[in-house]
Structure formats: structure tokens, C-alpha cells
């Protein structure tokens, strides 16, 4: 079919059929049933839909699928495997591990409604890859001032996110 494209999502090749301008978010959710990223504003103003594209956070709600071809797409469903690969864990250990960001989000009891938290964790993974030991000010800056928009949480979990990022940073250095 004319609209068939091959994507690399969470380490697996996926052939999908969608018009080239289709936002990656709808393909991940509706075709590949990866429902971690969620629709928020639909115009890159909130961060609920964030995924990693070759390790860089993008807003899946405005990223055309054509832009994702040839790049590695990572959603929160794929974070455990990312960590297992970084740590060269055995397949058995990899199956029962969580990414330290995810574990920190549980340990700090971050989510309230949780709608925005998939995007928050994606932003945290990107931040710690670039800055393994961020200060509170640097965490606030990353979640607020990095284009295209602040990551917004209406339940008000920002303090818990800051603590979880710091906890994960420690765990990843250990």
C-alpha cells in the first residue's frame, strides 16, 4: 500500500499504514496500541504526548509520522528495555526491571490522575541523559523552559516530580 511505512518503536520494527502527515501519536495509540502517550492539547503546549525520537523528546501530537521513519521511537512502555540495554542486563533480569525513572515515580508516589506523567517521565529520561546530576533549578528549567512548551500538570505534582528526578539520578549513578 502507498501509505505503508516501517517504524522502529521500542526496539521493534512495525509496519503501519497511515498518511504521511498523520501525527505519530495517533499511530502509536490506534495502530500499535501503545497508549502510554496521551492526547492533551494537540498543539505541543502541554507535553502529555511526549515520546523520545532517537533520545530527543518530541511532542507526538504534532510530529508527522514521516518524520519518525528511520528514527528510534521510545514510549514509556519501552523504557525498561532502554535501561536493560544500558545496564547490559540478562533477558531474565530485563523482564522484571523498571527504568529508574519509573521506579522513582513509584517510590515518590508522583501521579495523581497521572494523565501527564507519561510525558513527564519521557522528559525526565531526556534530562538525565544530558545532565546526570541536575539541581532543582535545572530540573525546573528543563520542565518549564525547554521548547516547545512547559510540561503542565493540573493536579500539581511538580514537587513530587522534582524529588523523583533527583531520586532517579542517584539510582542511575549507583
Amino acid at each position: 500500500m502507498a501509505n505503508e511505512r516501517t517504524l522502529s518503536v521500542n526496539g521493534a520494527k512495525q509496519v503501519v499504514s497511515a498518511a504521511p502527515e498523520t501525527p505519530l501519536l495517533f499511530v502509536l495509540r490506534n495502530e500499535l496500541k501503545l497508549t502510554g502517550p496521551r492526547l492533551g492539547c494537540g498543539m505541543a503546549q502541554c507535553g502529555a504526548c511526549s515520546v523520545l525520537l532517537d533520545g530527543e523528546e518530541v511532542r507526538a501530537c504534532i510530529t508527522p509520522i514521516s518524520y519518525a521513519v528511520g528514527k528510534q521511537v521510545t514510549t514509556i512502555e519501552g523504557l525498561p528495555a532502554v535501561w536493560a540495554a544500558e545496564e547490559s542486563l540478562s533477558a531474565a533480569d530485563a523482564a522484571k526491571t523498571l527504568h529508574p525513572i519509573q521506579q522513582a515515580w513509584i517510590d515518590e508516589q508522583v501521579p495523581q490522575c497521572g494523565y501527564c506523567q507519561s510525558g513527564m517521565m519521557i522528559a525526565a529520561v531526556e534530562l538525565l541523559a544530558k545532565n546526570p546530576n541536575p539541581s532543582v533549578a535545572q530540573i525546573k528549567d528543563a520542565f518549564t523552559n525547554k521548547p516547545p512548551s512547559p510540561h503542565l500538570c493540573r493536579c500539581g505534582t511538580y514537587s513530587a516530580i522534582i524529588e523523583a528526578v533527583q531520586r532517579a539520578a542517584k539510582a542511575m549513578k549507583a
Partner: protein
Amino acid sequence: MTLKTENSSDSPITVTLTRRGFVKMGGALFVSLSIPAGLSLHAAEGPTSLDPSVLASWLEIHSDNTILARTGRTETGTGMSAYYAQTIAEELCVRPETISLVLGDTDRTPDGGPSAGFLDGMANVRKVAAYTHQALLGLAATQLGVPVSKLTVADAIVSGGGKSISYGQLVQGQQLDLKIPVTGMRAKVDPSSPEGNGLAGLDGFTVTGDPPTKPVSQYKVIGTSYPMPGIPDKITGKTQWTCDVTLPGMLHARMVRPATLGSTLISVGALDKKQYPTAQVVTKGNLVAVLSPNEWEAIGAANSVAATTKWTEWAGLPGSDNLTKAIRDYKWGAPSQSKGNPAEVNAVLQGARKTMSATYELPYVRHAPIGPFLAVADVRSDGSVIVWTHSAQLQGLRAQIANTLSISTDKVVVRWLDHSGQYGRTTFGGDGAEADAVILSQLTGKPVRVQWTLQEDLAWSSVSPAYVLDLKAALDPNGHVIAFRSASYTPHQSDARLLGAILAGMPCCLPRPGSWVATESPFSAWAYDKIPTRLEEAYGMPNLAAESASGGLRGNIMRTPGQRQQNFAVEGLMNEAAASAGADPIQFRINHITDQRLIDILNATAKAAGWEPRPSPHPRARKSGSASVTGRGLCIVVRNNAYWVGIAEIAVTPSTGAVQVTKFAIGVDCGKIINPRQLDRCMKSGVVMGLSEALKEEVTFDKSKVTSTNWTRYKILTMEETPEIKVVQISRDDKGFGGGSEAANALGPPAVAAAFFDATGVHARRIPLTPAYVTTLLKAQSRTP
């Protein structure tokens, strides 16, 4: 077996344990509602279950020692699923990890009730568990041949007389039934409902009788930080959210809304079937939707159809810049509610040597979830309806849907799944995409998923109404307040109608405009009981543009409703009175209250904040200049057996109007704390929501439409704007349980306004304290000598 307990009217309440039969495998004790006499499940109100003869059990004890509990209330994100498990575990003497919960679903839960009404829900499950505990002790006494008085239970093992048996063993091989006495009614549409929202029975069923419960001194689970059960699945992507529901043959819908808040449909735009081959347009009245099996095609087609759809012109709003005038111009009649003594208060005010008065204003704000609302509905050919939603009032929503479709409530099942927070928006069972979804499913004959857009949610969802409040106080020569009078004026705030039903011209519940004195209500005690006399009046008016085809700006409750707004004014005047008396704001409050719990939490929070007693404003206060100036301010809230204190420290830059909250201390005494960790996070997140309202939030509109329809126009607090937050908790074993989450958001606005006065010497009597408002306010004050 029969258990007898005494209720308050001294008539014995009988709880009967019966054996339904024996089973080869497993076994269980089923705990169900004993429906009160006179309430027929076959009446028009309808039953809870799909099968009217079978009610879902409230609690089940299984032979493998696991426990299943069901409640119509849901998890709204504040940790209630943890607290319910803790409460049941405490009374049954089991570990909370052995309990799984079914929440919300109208066909799988027995009781109904609002999710926000946690304390009532908790009181219910405590009694359910306590009755069950007594029944299990009775079974164990028979099995072990040991009297109940000699039995102890730990971790689901009953021991006595040197013998022991587990709960699982007690029910092994049997099907046992325990009926729990309840009172209450099914939710139904009722125009005469006292709450004014057009619905009755939203509280669901309440367990009656007083089964013996565990003394607080013996608690092992309540008071510990049991984690919120749903978090791991949310972190890994395993949770099925409302937005993840897919059904065979399901159509994705996007709504085409009127051009203005009051427009009516002239003609529907053309659909280009070449470009959008699978899309279809559906209309009913002013409800217009575009549907397709493919979500992206539905989006494109809806945008295309919307561009050429014609609507009537309409301009019936006053514009948000003229809001206060519009509220002032309304012909107010008698107050909706009045508390206090008018003659006495007015006499003191007239005779006093010194009085002070002030007007406070709050704009329309809204719940503004990160995830716009959506719903999935399947109206089947046999007339049955199933709806998936994240509403916090499933039975009320069910009643509304049945009313809209003019069918029996029996025919409607509403299922709950997680979705974005809603902060009170659905407490009356309304204001989601559910009506859109059921109407479109009925018209297309297919399951339909309706996803609102952010612009739609920020323009068309219900709003927390604006307030204008006039306050006046009389002071004695020492500055002590000797009389206090408040009058609050507000548009409608109980409009729970479903937008889709309004626009389609289908039946809706009929809310009545009105208001209430929220600072002195069943939810809240008047804090300043050393003020000798007071009068509080609440005036309500209809929605702005209520006569329009959409019902106008539909006012609805939002977290800490009414009290949030009224308390802003009360605390504002108390801070102004303290300044007028030259008194430290904390000492001034202590001079006006007697409740030691309030005094204790004031002192504890002040200590945590490093509060140095002195009057406001700060001696270095300044209302001009480009260097920032700092201030600190305080407020209290008393709500739902919880005593709250907020202390804000802020930095103001007079030349730019920028206000940054640098530190915030929040203290609460909410009686016995159930879960310190979850309370801590609710307090911190409540501060964020309150500061967001204090500094940024305002629904703006012109004469025809809402204009604050994306996150750059409806601004909410960001992480960078979040201050360092200190939390103070006081737990008391002898004061019952209090509301430990809700009112945390009511502290931000009055505390920040007080800090603003401390920093600048200028009273800020409206929120939000945006740079534009602050610069205007400070410039005006700088001109006055």
C-alpha cells in the same frame, strides 16, 4: 446466624448471615445491601445492576483469603483507593494488599455516591467491614468452639483457646450471604432537589446501625503511608484509561461547535468524500459531529466541515472586562441563603466608631484538565446503553443519560476508567462528553468515541463562577472586630447539565440558580467565634447568557466550591483589619478564635515558616521601583473537620508587576490522619492549584465567545513557578476524620494577597495577580497620597 446492633434510635438493627449453598471449589462470604423497605429496585429509579434482581456485593471474603471490595465512588487522584483499602483492612484485621477494589461501575458496585464525598464513603466501608468482621467472628466462634469474646484476629487468622482458623478456611466450601442495612435512594433527575442541581440521590446509599468498630488507639493500618494502588500500572503503561477503550466497529467523533456561545445552526458545511471517504456528518439540533473509523480522518474532516458550517450571529455576553459591572447590574432579590443576625449586625455597624469595608472580586476560572474530556458510548439495538467515562458521579450521570434518551435507568450501564483529573467538575454527574457520545451512537447505530479538543474543553465546559463580595466590619477601640457582614454575589454554580443534550435539544436535568454561605455550612464551621455578631448573605443569579441556545457560561462547582471564593474575601478583610489594628496577623486571628485545634495549627505552621511576629505591611514595603520587594502573608480555612493554615512568601517587582511565590508553608489538622504520605502530596499539589488561581487563572471572553482557549491564554502554574513547599501535619486520635485534600487549594489566593500587601502596602482585592493587574494597581495607588 443473626447479629444485633443498636442504632441511635435504639431500635435493633438486624444483620443476618445465611448460607446460600455449598460449593466444591473455593467458597466466599458475600456482603450485600439490604435495600430498605419501600424502595423497590424495579421502580422508575432503576437498580444498580444490569439484572434488577441481583445487586453487586459490597465486599467478598474469598477462600484464598483475598478480599474484593466494590464502591460506586472512584479514585480521583488523591489516593482514595488507598484509604478505602486501609479502612477495610483495619476493621477486618487484614493486610491492605489482600484487598482489590472495583470502583465506579454502575453494574458492578452497589452503593453510588460522589467520589469527592470520601468521608461518607469511608464511613460506609468501615461499617461494611465492621459488620463483616462480626460475622466472621461468629463463624469462627462456632468452628473453634471458643466464645467471640475470647477471639483475636491478626492478618486474617482468628485465634482463641489455643486454636486458630483463617477467614479463607471459614468460608471454604460455602456460599455465605450477609445483608447490610442501608438507607438512601437511587440517583434520579429531580427538579425539586434541594441542592439546586436538578438531581436527587447523588449521595447513594448509607449504611445504618453502629457495628462495633476498632478503637483508633489500636489502629495498625490507618496512619501508615500505604501506596496508591493504581500507580505502578500508570507508570508502566498498563492502565486502561477511558481514552484507550476501543470497540468493534467504533467510530471516532470530533464535534463541530457553534461559532459563538449562543449561535444556532443555519447550515452544515460540505464534507469532501473524496478527501475523507470514511467520514460522515451527523447533526441533531445544534449538535454537529463528524465521525470516521479513523481518528485522524475524523479530525481532518471535522476541521473541513467546521470551516463552512454556518451559524447565526450572537453577542450576548458582557465581556470579561465588564464582568463586575454585569454582576453589579443584575437585579438582585433576596439572598439565596443567609446566616447570622441582620438586625444586631446592622445596629453594631451603625453605632460603631470605626468601620472598614472592602469589595473583593474573583473571575471565572475552570477545572482545565490536561486531558480534554472524552467518552465512549454504545447504544445497542435492544435499547440498552453502555458508556465508558471517568466521571466522579456514575449513578448521577446514569440518571442524566437515561433522562436525555427518555429511557428507563435500568437500560443504562456506566463504567468507570481513569482519565484526566476533573476537580469537582463531574461531582453532580454532568459536564463531560457522555451526552455527545450516546446521542451520536444512537443516531449512527455504532459505538462512538467522542474526544473533545482542548479548545473545546476550555470554551464549552462548565466554569467555576465569578464572585463579587462586599464586606464590612466594625472595630472596637482596640481594633478587635465586633461585627462582621458579608454579601457574596455570584452567577449559577450548580449547573450539571450535559452539553451534548443541551445542544441537541434533548431533555436535561433542570438546575436552579442559587448560592450558599459556604464559610458556614455543613462542610465548614465559622472560624472567628470571638467576633460577637455576624451576618453572611449569599446571592445567586442565573448563568451569564443563560437564555442562549447553549445555556451560556454554565456555572459549576470546583474544588472547595463557594468557600474558596468567600474565604478569599473573609481572610482579606481579616488581614486588612489586622493591619488597621497594627497587629501581627497570626496574633490578630488568635484574638478572634477559641478553637484550640486552629490555634495549634496556626502556631505550628508559623514555626515551620519561621514567622517573626510583626504587623503588615513590612517597614520596607514599596509600591514602585524596578528592584523586587518581599512580603509574607497568612490565611486560614476551616472545612470538613479540617483546619488549614497557609503562609506565603513572595517577591514583587513593582515596575513589571511580576509576582513570584518563593516559599509556601501549609499546615493541616484533619483529625486522625489516614495516610501521611498521600496527605503530604495532596497538600503540596493543592498549594500548586491555589497559587495557579492566585497568580494566573482567568476565563476571558468577549461579547460572543470564550477567548482563553489554549494553554497560552488560560495560563496555569508551571514547575518553575512552584515554590519550595513546607508541610505541617497534626494528627489527632480523638477528633474523627477530616477532609485532608480538598481545601488545600483555597489557601493560595488569600495568603498571596496578604503577602502582596506586606510587600507593597497595597491591598490586592482581586485575583489573579497578573503583571498587568499588579502594575495597574500599584500605579493607581502610587498616585494617591
